[in-house]
Structure formats: C-alpha cells, structure tokens
C-alpha cells in the first residue's frame, strides 16, 4: 500500500534522507528505527505530503505523493512527532475541526467520535483546552485525530513518547488490533515496542537504509537482544 522510491531530501548542506526505497503491504506493521537525526521524521513528513522531496517519489494506496497529495492525505492518518494542535481549542473542538476538514458528516461523525474517544481514553478531557493537557493526553488526542477517519494507512511518529507504562501498553494493543486491516509505519526509540508490535523493522542512519528485516531474524542473526543489535549496527555503520 505504501511504495517509496529513491526518496531524497536535504536541508541546506545536510542530507536528511538519501535515496530511501521500500514497500509496505497491508497487514504489515513497520518499525522505523534509527538514531536521532537519521531521517525518520523527514521520510514520514514526505509521506504525509508536508514536505516535498528533492527527488524520488512515493505512492500511498496507489496515489502519488507529488501528483495527488490530496488523495494521499485522505487515506493517511498521521501523527507528527511533536503532536501539532491548536492550543486554544478544546479536545472536542479540535476533533470536530478534523472531521470538518475530512468531510465526515453529522451521523458518521457522531459514530466516529463515539468510537474514537473511548478508544483513546480521552473522555475525561473532552471539554478541556489542549494547552492544559499533559504530554500523554496531548499525544492521545493526536492519536485520536489520526484515527478518526479510520484510515487505511497509519503513519505514527513516536506514538508512545511521553505516555505512562499503562498507556504505552494500551497504544501497543491498539496498534496490534488494527494491524490486520491496515498498513502501519511506527517510528520509535523503544526497542521492546518493536518486538511487541512490529512485523518488520527498518533501521536507517544518516538518511540511508541499513537493515530491512524482521525483529526475529535480526535477533537470530546477531544472537543478542534487539537493543544490542541496534547499537552494533548503528554505531559501526555511522562511525
């Protein structure tokens, strides 16, 4: 459902993403790993049509991100790393705005809200302004916003960052539950999370893909925990 071809993007002299290509199929949960500044967020932002690639392209659900960005955005649910939101709005106000923008009409909207609000456990803050929320609640609102239109493709940039252990567990369960009918890319720094939810891992460093494998294969190949594998790979290759 996602097909990325030779995506490249630099910011001034810094090459953030340097010719990344991969495909993700329906039913796959791709764990996107890499040290800070490896280019994970940049790849995700390009997929969400927020940044334009310098060269290369990608298709999401058959739509090209350059030629048909609107259709791409319709089929994607995107949670950005810093959870962008309008701080002065209430949680309900924001979700309704997203419904407006995604053209979810009255009846469906009520159903969608009834489904998503308990799912992300944000009932208690529904009428609260977003800038009064804690980091964890804010992220859950971001997640609700990304899931509200039941997208086929989910792009989640560090979805569990700032959540408490219980919430982390819940979000992982949520991802596993949705995995079958969707195509999900999750970036994270928490390697146990990759083992818990991902069916595939890609490790990138300095804008290039170093490893494209499954968590089990990696562990077998290197004969140690995923954390050690990550350290071995990114340290030797980057230095």
């Amino acid at each position, binding site marked *: 459902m996602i097909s990325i071809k030779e995506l490249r993007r630099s910011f001034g002299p810094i090459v953030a993403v340097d010719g990344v290509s991969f495909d993700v199929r329906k039913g796959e949960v791709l764990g996107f790993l890499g040290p800070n500044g490896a280019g994970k967020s940049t790849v995700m932002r390009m997929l969400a049509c927020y940044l334009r690639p310098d060269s290369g392209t990608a298709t999401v659900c058959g739509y090209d991100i350059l030629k048909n960005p609107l259709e791409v*955005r319709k089929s994607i649910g995107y949670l950005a790393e810093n959870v962008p939101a*309008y701080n002065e709005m209430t949680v309900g106000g924001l979700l309704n705005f997203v419904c*407006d923008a*995604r053209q979810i009409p009255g009846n469906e909207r009520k159903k969608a809200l009834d489904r998503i609000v308990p799912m992300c456990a944000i009932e208690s803050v529904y009428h609260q302004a977003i800038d009064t929320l804690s980091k964890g609640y804010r992220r859950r609102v971001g997640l609700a916003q990304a899931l509200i239109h039941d997208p086929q493709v989910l792009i989640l940039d560090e979805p569990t960052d700032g959540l408490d252990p219980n919430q982390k567990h819940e979000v992982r369960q949520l991802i596993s539950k949705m995995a079958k009918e969707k195509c999900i890319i999750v970036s994270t720094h928490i390697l146990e999370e990759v083992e818990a939810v991902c069916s595939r891992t890609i490790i990138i460093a300095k804008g290039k893909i170093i490893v494209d494998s499954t968590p089990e294969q990696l562990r077998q190949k290197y004969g140690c925990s995923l954390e050690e594998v990550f350290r071995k790979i990114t340290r030797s290759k980057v230095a």
Partner: protein
Amino acid sequence: MGGFKAVFKRELRSYFTTPIAYVFLVVFLFFSGYLTFKNGFFEIRQADMTAFFINMPLLFAFMVPATTMRLWAEERKTGSIELLLTLPITVTQAVLGKFFAAWVFLIIALALTFPMVITVFFLGNPDAGLIITGYLGTILMAGGFLALGCFFSALSKNQVISFVLSVVACAVLVFAGVPTTMNYLSTFLPAGLVSAVETMSLESHFESIQKGVLEFKDVSYFIILIIGWVAACTVVLEERKAG
C-alpha cells in the same frame, strides 16, 4: 470546498475563543469614536460620517496587521501548520479560509460602529447612499490590508516581524497618496511618475468611493490588491514545503 469551510469556521471561532476579538473590538471601537469627535464631528454641523471614515485608513493600517500577524506566523511557531497541511486541505483553501474569516471579523467590527449611524440619523437627514459607500470603501480597504498582512505573516515565524512589516507596507499604501508626499515627489519626479504613484496609493481610490462615486477603477484597485497579495501568500507557503 470542504477544506475552505473547515478552516473558515475554525478561524472565525478562534477569534472569539481567545481574547483577540474582545481586545481588538474595544480598542477599535474606542479609537474610531474618539478620532471622529476629535476631528470636529459636531463643529462641522453636517449630518454625515465623513469625520468617521476619514480616519479609517490610518486606524486600519495599525489595527489590521494586529489581527493578521498571527495568521501564519503563529501556526508555524506552534507547529500546528503541520496538522493543517497534512489534512486533506490545499494551501489555497487554507489561505482563503483564513483570509475570509479575518475579513468577516473586521466586517463584524465595522458593523459594531452602528451607533455612529444612529447618531447621524438622529441629528439630521444624512445621505444614506454616502454612508453605504463609505462602509463599502472601508470594507474593501480592510480586505486589501488583510491580504497584505496575510502575506507578511507567511514570511516569518516571528509575529513581531510580520506585524512591523505589514504596518510599514500598509502605511506606504496610505501615505504615498497624501498631498505632502505628492508635493515632495513632484519636486524631482516627472509628472507621469507622480501620478503613477498616486494611482497606486490607496488614498485616492478610497476617497472617491467615500464621495459616493462607485467607479470600476476604484473597486478593481482593491480587488487586484487582494487577489495579488493572497496569491503571493499561497506561493510563499507552497514554496516553504520545498525549501
């Protein structure tokens, strides 16, 4: 279309959920009234609103940038632009949604100056047509300033910078056409250029609408001003994605 409506609704509501609307309305209504009476509204002994409309260009040159400075600068500072532009909304829809929401807000502010109209009708027998064209001219001018402000707000993440640049740009439009500037320019510029500057300034177009003359060239001046700057704003935001 859905994108435009969503942005428009959200923006217009956000004026009233934050203190912006109330601070703006109080300050604007105070000064629009104060300047009118200070300019000798009673002394003229004429039941018309000239004394009211004459201050509008200068007042709006400061007040409009105060409403537009946040439009894009704030979105970029807080990062909410990443939410906005990853929803299925085109940049054009977002720009227009914000522009029209701000315009409607200013029209609401102008509508709240209705006590002036009542006063004038109470005191005498004013020409209603003049008052209507006066408001129309002011609304068009507000639109022009808004479009300018939108553009400068998209240029910078910093609201102060976008405010200062918009005020300067609005002031240039206003002051390029006043007699002092015209006299000064005519000391060293050929007559053709001086009249070119005058046509490009806002003052002459605004005044002729004030006088009740609704000419195509004056209305189209404002329409072109609006379309031009709104389009420029869209281009700047589109480019940002690549740059």
